[in-house]
């Protein structure tokens, strides 16, 4: 993947920003809660039209062949309209296909939103460090239970991870086919997440063994980074809201932002915001260059853990500094809060990221180099 030059990046950021501003309607976002498909009807068309779905697809699949950092710009910008859905799930499905070197037709459809694949990989709530799935694949049939399937609502296909005769298999299953049953949970922000029950559902193999393992791991890492980018967008917006509040709300005869104790709390929030920004920017740039999957995994884990933790801290402090207004759903802060709560635990909570990092770090080898 290539990095984007600065001018193109700026144009992309501007385009996403405009879309976000146009669609940042808190009332509409609230009205769509706990309903399918979890995003505004026109969203998919815009994403396809603007080429955002094609950013990280290879050029021979109608994509732009750009890096994760380009997709990160989109994810971050979409925080401005309170959610990036269904951007992450389509990116995840696309990237797993790219890494598996399979599903060329599907990829072409994905770039134009004509095909809407969803990756069904997760079986237990702490699954990010990946164990062989309990879902099985044999003789062209998949059976098992998947949950937390992002983008399941409205999906045209599922890409299902399963244990098969040749180790891990990535299996393509058509949505709605007999033997598959889809239900939905709703997340804190009211967006749906699928539960998929497969009972001898027919499927075709996309990849197996090491190729499948690497493709799955790589796509999860990359999408986890995108989630981090969206979190950054929410962090910036929560900070802006709370600083504005501190500059306008009066108590005890003065602006509350003039109270030094609150100033220092805000300053500490800024330290974390600034740190997260530095880590995200450096991490995304590095992600476009790093080839070694272990190094990519370590970079992704560290970046994601930082953004998770920063978001959690900024949520906590923002609500507190807003006071009672911070706990109303009528305040737009709540839309960012709930979105962050929906994202933080998806594709790796911080404790999972730290465990994953240590799995990869091979302590002996790294320390011998005097580096970590």
């Amino acid at each position, binding site marked *: 993947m290539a990095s984007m030059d600065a001018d193109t990046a700026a144009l992309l950021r501007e385009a996403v920003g405009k879309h976000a501003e146009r669609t940042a309607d808190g009332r509409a976002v609230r009205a769509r809660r*706990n309903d399918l498909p979890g995003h505004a009807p026109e969203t998919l068309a815009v994403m396809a039209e603007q080429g955002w779905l094609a950013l990280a697809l290879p050029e021979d699949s109608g994509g732009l062949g750009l890096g994760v950092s380009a997709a990160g710009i989109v994810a971050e910008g979409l925080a401005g309209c309170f959610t990036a859905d269904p951007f992450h799930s389509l990116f995840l499905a696309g990237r797993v296909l790219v890494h598996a070197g399979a599903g060329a037709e599907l990829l072409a459809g994905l770039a134009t939103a004509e095909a809407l694949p969803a990756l069904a990989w997760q079986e237990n*709530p702490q*699954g990010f460090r990946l164990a062989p799935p309990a879902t099985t694949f044999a003789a062209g049939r998949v059976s098992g239970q998947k949950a937390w399937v992002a983008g399941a609502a409205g999906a045209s296909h599922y890409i299902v991870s399963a244990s098969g005769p040749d180790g891990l298999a990535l299996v393509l299953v058509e949505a709605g086919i007999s033997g598959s049953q889809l239900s939905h949970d709703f997340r804190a922000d009211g967006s749906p997440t699928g539960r998929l029950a497969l009972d001898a559902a027919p499927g075709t193999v996309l990849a197996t063994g090491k190729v499948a393992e690497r493709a799955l791991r790589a796509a999860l890492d990359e999408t986890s980074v995108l989630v981090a980018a969206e979190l950054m967008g929410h962090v910036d917006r929560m900070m802006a809201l709370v600083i504005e509040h501190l500059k306008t709300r009066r*108590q005890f005869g003065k602006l509350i932002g003039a109270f030094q104790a609150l100033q220092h709390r805000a300053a500490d929030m800024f330290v974390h915001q600034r740190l997260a920004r530095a880590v995200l920017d450096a991490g995304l740039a590095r992600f476009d260059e790093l080839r070694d999957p272990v190094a990519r995994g370590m970079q992704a884990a560290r970046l994601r853990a930082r953004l998770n933790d920063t978001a959690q801290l900024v949520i906590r402090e923002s*609500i507190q500094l807003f*006071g009672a207004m911070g706990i109303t759903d009528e305040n737009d802060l709540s839309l960012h809060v709930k979105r962050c709560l*929906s994202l933080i*635990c998806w594709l790796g*909570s911080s404790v999972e990221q730290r465990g994953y990092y240590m799995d990869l770090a091979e302590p002996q080898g790294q320390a011998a180099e005097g580096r970590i």
Partner: protein
Amino acid sequence: MTDPAPDWNAMAEEDFRRMLRDFIETECPAELRHYPHRFPADVSMPWYRALHRRNFIAPGWPVEYGGMGLRPDRHLIFIEEMEAAGTPWLHDAGVRNLGPAIIAWGTEVQKAHYLPLMHSGEHIWCQGYSEPSAGSDLASLQCDGRIEGDRMVVNGQKIWTTSAHVANHIFALIRTDRTGPKQEGISFVLIDMGLPGITVRPIENLSGHPDFCEVFFDDVVVGTDCILGEPNKGWAVARSLLGFERIWAGSPKRAFKVLLALRRLMEERGLLASDYWRDRLAQAIFDTQDAQDMYGGFADLVRADGKVGVEISALKIWSTGTFQRLSELLLEAAGSDAALAGEGAADLLAPYYESRAPTIFAGTNEVHRNILARSVLGLPKSD
């Protein structure tokens, strides 16, 4: 009010606990248990009435008013058993806060009128203190009461009024004089919410369950016999009530409830095989049990001389912070389940949302830090 009560304080602790468990088992329907929000009043009313019948509704009131007369440490046991059994939260600002204030400040007529109706649940009370421009800075409240002979005309607005959408009475701080310093000229007024001119607008909170409201007063007319304590001296009444409020606000019971959920979750998930999670659980246990030790210490002080000093702010800060940290740990331990909006006891987000308000209400923790710095540590005025 029924049979003469035994001396609950003298009963052996285990007997007292068993008695409560039996009572709960008999009277509290299973479907009302372990629910993380307050129910609408009519749903929880059978349980309220059962408590009333047995004179268990006001554990802290003196026996002569239908209370249990519990010492604070025994009161804590009462709360523990209720929480462990998951009995529903009630709209009980009346018995919890107002009752003791009426007992302390009320005329005999007020006591005779209000206390039984509060005890039986006919009067459900909410507390009208905060206003849009008077949150932490409560003394700057503006809600206006114009006294005309033996009546008062109330105009203005209250906000963050917990349970106002289910209450039929409100006790409110109303400015009845504007000539002196801002703490003076405030009256403590008992108002029937069925009076003309009162409107209530529920405010949706993070958890999606309305728990607090705006209350608007538009030329509401009440008798001056609704003033508790002396007119214009309502600040003293409200302050005396803050003692009770603060020991409640510092109760570790909500943190304890999350701790039980956390332990259950960790066991179900097999997380305790990992010494990372064992350590986190131990920290959570220590933080909560230590809060109980501090709570017990303050309860002892109350028992000794009926008062809590300003140090109680430390308890409020610690307990509400612990509740918040534990709710975050619960989400961390839940992994991807943490994002899911569940129902009832399975709603892991509920403790997270609910733990946001206690660090803000009953005096923000920042206000309590100011109190500690100035009144306990004696640091110089910060202006």
